Each structure stands twice: as structure tokens, then as C-alpha cells.
């Protein structure tokens, strides 16, 4: 990936966390700006125009969600949330409020970098618009509406393709149940998460090597689904 001048803004009150984040991002060629509270973070977001924001939820002055909401009132910059609570409802709320993804502490740098890259890719896609999304052995041509697995084309039903399409446009990022339900179904069926589960099951049978151990279309418990961009990210920690 070409990212010599990508600027990442880290908003976190813990100096030690900022230190390793800085090292991790700088190793990957990012330039890093730090802010230790919400107010400073919003200021830095305005004046330094970062390409990516890493936002901690437990800030001394403002709640992370408030920072996110204020930021979203004028900017579309990708935001990855750092949180200690593995609370699904909170995650869904944050994603709804405009966060691109989240990482739960403690996390490995590779995980955060993958999320950041996925968010950046999606952010810049509007400009470059590559119609083919690849995820491991899977490639989805968004223009030709074709899906191939290990270079051989596979047949999907309309709803299966719709589901894969949404996930592919967010490749590497989590997509909430709500979002998927609203984009695939209409009317009352929108609330029926059972439909989504069954559709996912069917799609997995077509794209996964072992549907019992999905590696491409992974579940984010209580939140949604994610199409993994790279296999090693699913590797066990």
C-alpha cells in the first residue's frame, strides 16, 4: 500500500499507550500526531487534517462518543475506537454514531493496523474506485457483479450477492446487523435477524472452505459481520 504521508491522530490520555501506538504506526510509515484529551483531539482534527483517527473512549474531559459525534458533524475522516469495555451495545452505538470500526483493549498492533488500513482504503476508494474487491481466495467484481473463488466463478442468489456486496464495500471493517438487514430486506423483514443468520449460513456454504470454521465471513459477536481482507488476521492470537 502506498501511504508515505498518511497522518494518524491518536486521542488517548495514556502516554504509554500513545508511545507504542506511535512506534507501531511509524514503523508502518505513518506520521503521527498525539492528543491527550478530547478538546485537544478535536482541535488537532481541525488543524492537522489527519487521514485516520484512533480514539480512546475513556478520556478525562469528554466521553469518546461525544468526541466522535462532534467530529462527525463536519468530517468523514475514518475513526477507529479503542475501548476497554467489550460491551456489544456500546459498540453498536459507536458504529451507528459513525465510527468505522473498534478494537478492544488489550489488542495487538497488527489488528489495529488492519482495521486502520481497511478504513483508509474505504475512505480513499471514492477517488480511486477499483471495482474488484479481493479477500483471500475470494474476489468480488462490484461492477460486473461476479464472484469468483480461487479464480473460478461461483453462483450466488440475489440476496446472497447483496450481502456479499455490502461486506465487500466495507472489506476489513465490521458491518452491523442493522445495517445489513436494512440494506437487504424491506418492511417487517428488516427486523428479523434470523433471516440474516440463515442467509449468512447459506453464503458461507458457498464461499468458505469449511463453513463450520469461517475464515472469510466472520462473526463479530453481538455486533455484526466482517469480510476479512487478509487471512492472517483471522489467525488465532
Amino acid at each position: 500500500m502506498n501511504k508515505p504521508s498518511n497522518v494518524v491522530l491518536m486521542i488517548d490520555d495514556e502516554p504509554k499507550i500513545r508511545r507504542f501506538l506511535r512506534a507501531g504506526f511509524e514503523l508502518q510509515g505513518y506520521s503521527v500526531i498525539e492528543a491527550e484529551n478530547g478538546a485537544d483531539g478535536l482541535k488537532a482534527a481541525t488543524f492537522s487534517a489527519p487521514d485516520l483517527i484512533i480514539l480512546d473512549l475513556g478520556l478525562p474531559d469528554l466521553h469518546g462518543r461525544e468526541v466522535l459525534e462532534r467530529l462527525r458533524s463536519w468530517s468523514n475522516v475514518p475513526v477507529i475506537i479503542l475501548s476497554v469495555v467489550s460491551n456489544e451495545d456500546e459498540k453498536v452505538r459507536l458504529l451507528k454514531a459513525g465510527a468505522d470500526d473498534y478494537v478492544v483493549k488489550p489488542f495487538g498492533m497488527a489488528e489495529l493496523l488492519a482495521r486502520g488500513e481497511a478504513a483508509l482504503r474505504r475512505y480513499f476508494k471514492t477517488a480511486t474506485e477499483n471495482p474488484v474487491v479481493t479477500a483471500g481466495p475470494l474476489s468480488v467484481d462490484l461492477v460486473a457483479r461476479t464472484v469468483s473463488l480461487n479464480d473460478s466463478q461461483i453462483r450466488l442468489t440475489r440476496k446472497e450477492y447483496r450481502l456479499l456486496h455490502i461486506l465487500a464495500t466495507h472489506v476489513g471493517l465490521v458491518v452491523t446487523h442493522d445495517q445489513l438487514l436494512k440494506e437487504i430486506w424491506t418492511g417487517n423483514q428488516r427486523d428479523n435477524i434470523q433471516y440474516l443468520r440463515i442467509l449468512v449460513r447459506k453464503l458461507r456454504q458457498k464461499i468458505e472452505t469449511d463453513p463450520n470454521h469461517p475464515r472469510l465471513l466472520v462473526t463479530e459477536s453481538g455486533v455484526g459481520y466482517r469480510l476479512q481482507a487478509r487471512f492472517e488476521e483471522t489467525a488465532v492470537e
Partner: protein
Amino acid sequence: MNSHLPIDQKLAKPRARPIGIGTGGASALDAEPPSRGVWRTHVVPLLLSFLGVSVVTAILLPLRQDAAANLVPIAYLIPVIFAATRWGIWSATLASIVSMVEADFFFFPPVYSFRVEDPQEVVDLLMFLIVALVSSNLASRLRHETESLRLREQEIQLLYEFSRLLAACFTVSDLVSAIQKYLSRTLGQPALFFAARTDAHFETPPFGSVPGVVHARVASMKAQIGAPPVAILDEPAQNVWLLGPVCSETTVHGLVAVNIGGGSREAVEIKTRRIEAILEEVSLTLQRIDIENAIKDARLHLQAELLRDAFHGTLSHELCTPLATIRGSASVMDTMPAVRQDDRLHALVEGISDEAVHLDGFIQNLLNATRVTAGGVAPHLEWAELRDIVNAAIKGRARRLSSHKIEMAFAEDLPLVNVDSGLIEEACGQLLENAAKYSPSGSRISISARAEQTQVVLSISDQGVGITPEEQQQIGRRSFRGQRHQGVPGSGLGFWIASTFVRANGGTIDIASKGQGQGTTASIALPGSPPMQPSELADLRDE
């Protein structure tokens, strides 16, 4: 027995009649108290009084000529006062009358005759009788007062000692032994304690014996707060037994049975009063113990709550933040070329990462445990794929499962389950962890899931040490750890957390083993989805 109660015996009247005990409500005793010693206590003093007067007469007779006539009445006052102070009013009255008669007979002319010639002397004799009666009355009253004062002082002294004994009591059993000790010492008879049972009856003490009649009475009694003491006569031995309840304001702890011996109604009443006073002290002490316990409980509760809050706050910040730093820093180091090229460095960094993950799992466990204790498990139910939940659980514990072969066998069209995925994932992870912990490395852990009516049953089987029937009974308890596994690290919270989370989701958890060394199977049954309606199937069809 009687030798311990000299004073009371002397006070007793020469007859016995039914006695009512204590505070009115107590049952009356329809029996004659024993009349032994009446001769010694009542007849002998009268004879001695008579004798005393006669001795004075014998001494005065030779002096009749020399002594002034007015010395005679004064000399006779000596045996009268002596009898009054020594034996009481009846002996003194007898002595007064005998004195008057003997004085008249021996000293007042005409001597050796009961006649009195001089009217002046008649007045003298009558005056003597009045003085003798009044002074003997006063003297005997004084004696009585002194005696009861002495008794009261003794009683107070004993009670004071008992209070001191009670002040050192901190538990009910301390108290019971204090009562027993005290009563045995003051009454010279062992006091028996019948502990109250949960069904409001009383338990027979393991040692000491009571007469059959007392036993029958205790068996028929029910524990009741504020019940008055009951007196029972043990006819063959002519002993009175007192049954006094030991209770605080809220609980009856038991019944004390004391043999207070025989004697008059008065004697029995005195002892009853004393025992009542003791029981009152006891109930005050019990209240004090109750209050102390309540305060202790409240303090413990508060401490636990504060600790829990502090624990949550501390865990999320003071532990998780450093842990995030360690994990994150190690992961950054792991991407550095210098580390990647050196196998030793790489292994060290991996070790740091692994341990940080392990520590995180442990902290999550503790958090879960406190969450359960705080009663804060509020499941967020939604339809979920059990495979996803199990996969997440396996992934979360990959390191601890790495030395086992995991096999999964899921029914093809397994219904969805209506659960909180996070909680079930945790429960499942705990069971997997236990399976790995208690089975040899390299062995197989099989995970299977099948539909059973409206439920989905997930089973996790290992080839490990199994469970003995004794362990089976205790396994649901918090912090239970089998005696055989003291060497295996763990908190003993795993199964408890798992079962709490499963129950919070409306499921059931079951653990079974064919026996020691035969492996264990843990099963979780969860509410599953009903089969799809035709309309729903139509919604799904999109070919």
C-alpha cells in the same frame, strides 16, 4: 442437694402446698414438696427455747435470796432474745410465755404456785410479757431482714459474676456453656441445654440425663419467643425441674433444664427468680450478640460492595491499561526487523504477548465473577448461530486449547439459539477451559450440537479425569475445586460462572461423567428457534 441450700431450708414452713412459679403464666405444680427435716428445723428450736428458759430458771433459783427481784425479768429476756435472733418469732413467743410462767412459779410470792398476790406484781409480769414479745418480735424481724439482705447480696454477687462471664461471650455456644457453668456452680447440679431445631422443637443434648417426665415435657414443647419458664416435679426424687427458654427478641436458641431440688414453695420461688434473672441477662446478651453479628454482617457487606466497585474501577483502568500497553508494545516489537530476524528475541516477545493474553483472560474471569455476584447479569437476547459462538469461544482460548485436538460435529440444519452471545461464549469458553485443564494434553475434546424439541443442546466431552459422585454434588458451588486437583491452577470459578450465565439465558447446564478417569461431558441446553413458517421461508427464497 439439701446441704447446698441451708438458709432456704430453715426459712421454710413446716408444710407444703402447690406452688405457682415465676411470672404468673407458668404452670402450677400440683404436688407436695418434701417435708423432710421439719422436725429438725421446727420442733428442735421450740424445745431448745424451752430448755434455754429452764436453764435461766436453774441459774436464778440458788440466787433467789440474794438477787433483787427486779433482776429476774431482765435475766429471762436473754433466752427470749436469743431464741428470736436464732430461731425466729415462734420460738421467741414460746420462750416469752414460758419465761413468764416460770418467773411466776419460782420467783413471785407465793413461790411454787401460779398465783400472784400483789397486784403490782401482776402488772410487772404482764409488762415483762409485753416487753418480751415486742423485743422478740423486733429481734426476729431484724434477723429476717439481715438474712434476706445477705441473700440478696449473695444473689447480686452471683449475678455480677455471671454478667462478667456473659460479657466474654461472643457466640451462642459460648453463652450456652456460660449458662451451664454458672448454673452448675450455683446449684451444684448440671444444667442441660436443649438446642432449638428448625422445626421449633428441641434437640436432646448428647450427654447428661433428665427424668422421663421432664423429657416428655420438653418433647411436647414448642420453641416460642418470650415463653415463661416452666416448673416440673420429678415425683420419685422429689425434685423440681425448671425449664427456662434461652431466647433473644427474634430467635429461640434452646431450653435450659435445671434441677433446683426440693424444698418449700418459698425456696423454689427464690431459685426460680434467680434463674429468671439469669435468663433475662442471657436474653440481653443474645441481643447484644445478634446486634454484633448484624453489624459485622453489614460491615462485611459494605466492604464487599466497596471492594467490588473498586475492583471494577481498578480492573478496567489500573490493570487493563498496563496490560494493553504490554500487549500492544510486544506486538509492535514483534513487527520490528531486529526482532523478527532474531529467533531468541522473537520467542521472548511472543512469550510476553502470550502471557498478556493469558492474564487478560484471567482478569475477564474475575470481572465476570464479580458481575455475577453483583447480580448484574442482564442478558441481551437475540437470535444467534451457535457455531459462531463456539468458534469465538475456541478462538478466545486458543492458547489454552492448543495442546488438545478439538473436534466439532454440528447438525446441518441446527436451529438458531435465542441467547446473549457474549454470555454463552463465556460459558462455553469456561467449559472448554475446564475440559482442557482436566484432560491429558494430546487428547480429544469433542464439541457437538443437536436439536432436541425446542432446544439446542451443546455438549463438550473430554477424555480426562472425570468426576466422582461426591464431586458431582458440589460442582455447582462457587469456588469448588476437587480435592484431587489441588495441583491444577485455577480459581474454581469456571463452572459456577458458566452455569450462572447459562441460567441467565434461560438455559440449563448439566455435567456428567461415567466415573473417575472416564472423561466428562458438559451439556448446555439453550432455547432454540421454532421451525420456519412457510411465509418466512418464502421471504428467504430469492433464487
